[in-house]
């Protein structure tokens, strides 16, 4: 854990690596500041604003388990019910440990991120691919302690760092969208939003189911009637 620059502000680093076929910036780094001692993984994504300021598309399994389906617009079209084919690409969550990147085995809402933590998200098929080798200080460089007066008035804020290609293949650099000025007020709410609020936000963008049709039911009814008739016919012949 790295010491925070401010006594009341904590920082966590976030690395988002898009899939190989992604047209936009391949790698995005974000340094997220927050006031709480710890925040959930989903809150880290929301505070980072990697989804153009919108909460990431998630799927609520109930019981507090949440899976992330879309980050920063990838995949372009969220599959029906959030998930595509099992063997297809999906977002995987990683945390940096002294031994390297380790996959998270709980949903994004099932763990807490604290000061100095480094989290990674990658979009790949199967069991996912490890994020590039990054250190916390690369994403969240040390900052000089602010003046006491500024510290007293400052609220938790979000800072963004343009990505730097750390691998030869990662030649694309995300265009720095908007580096907030030092005096910007917090983009994030003072407390992590409730899961219900997040789901209410994300559920509006889900595709609405098509209107029910009677044709499939007729097909099923016809098949059941046919098989029942065949059963009765064979039962009669078998008994004869």
């Amino acid at each position, binding site marked *: 854990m790295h010491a925070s620059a401010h006594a009341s502000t904590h920082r966590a680093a976030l690395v988002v690596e898009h899939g190989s076929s992604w047209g936009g910036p391949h790698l995005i780094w974000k340094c997220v500041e927050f006031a709480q001692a710890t925040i959930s993984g989903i809150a880290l994504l929301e505070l980072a604003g990697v989804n153009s300021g919108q909460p990431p598309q998630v*799927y*609520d*399994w*109930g*019981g507090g*388990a949440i899976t992330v389906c879309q980050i920063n617009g990838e995949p372009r079209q969220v599959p029906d*019910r*959030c*998930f595509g084919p*099992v063997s297809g690409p999906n977002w995987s969550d990683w945390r940096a440990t002294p031994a390297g990147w380790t996959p998270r085995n709980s949903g994004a809402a099932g763990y807490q991120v604290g000061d100095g933590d480094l989290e990674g998200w990658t979009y790949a098929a199967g069991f996912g691919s490890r994020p590039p080798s990054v250190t916390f200080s690369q994403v969240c460089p040390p900052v000089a302690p602010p003046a006491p007066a500024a510290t007293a008035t400052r609220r938790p804020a979000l800072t963004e760092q343009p990505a730097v290609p750390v691998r030869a293949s990662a030649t694309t650099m995300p265009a720095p969208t908007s580096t907030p000025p030092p005096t910007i007020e917090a983009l994030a709410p003072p407390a992590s939003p409730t899961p219900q609020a997040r789901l209410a936000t994300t559920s509006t963008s889900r595709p609405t189911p098509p209107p029910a049709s009677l044709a*499939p039911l007729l*097909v*099923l009814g016809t*098949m*059941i009637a046919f*098989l*029942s008739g*065949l*059963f009765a*016919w*064979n*039962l009669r*012949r*078998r008994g*004869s």
Partner: protein
Amino acid sequence: MSLNPLAWCAWAVAALAVAFVDRNPYLQLVLLMVILNVWLPYRGRATGGYWKVGTLLAVTPIVFSVALSRFGQHVLFRLPDIPILGGRWTLEALVFGASTGAALLLVVAVFGVLQTTVRSADLVSRLPPFLYRAGTVFVLAVAFAPQTVAAVRSISEARRLRGQRSGWRAAPALLVPLLLTTLERAMQYAESLDARGYGSRHRSRYQRASWQPADHLVLAASTVSLLLVILLPPTPYMPYQGLVPPFPTLVGFGAVLLLAFPALLFATRREHHVADLV
């Protein structure tokens, strides 16, 4: 009406593929009806045990899923903080367990149909020469377990008739007669194999099964069904993502309906062949 054992094997492979791949409740219902139709002409050949095992296997995943899974949004009830069992019991977990149990029931039902329609000796006789010995040994080894159970029952019954104690307390007393019975059966196997020329260079057959048009039809229908299931799999049903299952396509229904060919053949055959069935 007797189909070639290989045609039955092709049907069983296709039916198992449908049971494993199609976890859609609509397709599972149709497949169960198809299997019942196919099984009907051969009922009465001691298949009750299979349905008991299938029912038990169908219920077990429901119990485990609903008792151990805490995911889902439709809460049936909540239990206090008891280890393992405490927390939310959800409808999604119940439906997921039912879906898994239905798949297991279908698998057992397919094997039940195969058991009633195909003799293991017929399958062994159709193995290629280099697999014949291994196949024979395998079939004898597989048959060892149920025959041992039957031997235990007969020995226990004989002890009861003699007024001796039965039940688990009498288990040590069963060991010696069971061992002698098993050794005696093994000797009989060896003598039977030797009398039939097992291990000689050339293999003889009492009756060579022929391919009839019905076998070709069943084989073709099963192959098409298998290809449809593999190449055009239906939308998977995930109760945790939505309780209402997606409706299968006509291709999915067709793949299942093709498996009803043996029942259709039975329905369209001539009356005077009824006696062949029993």
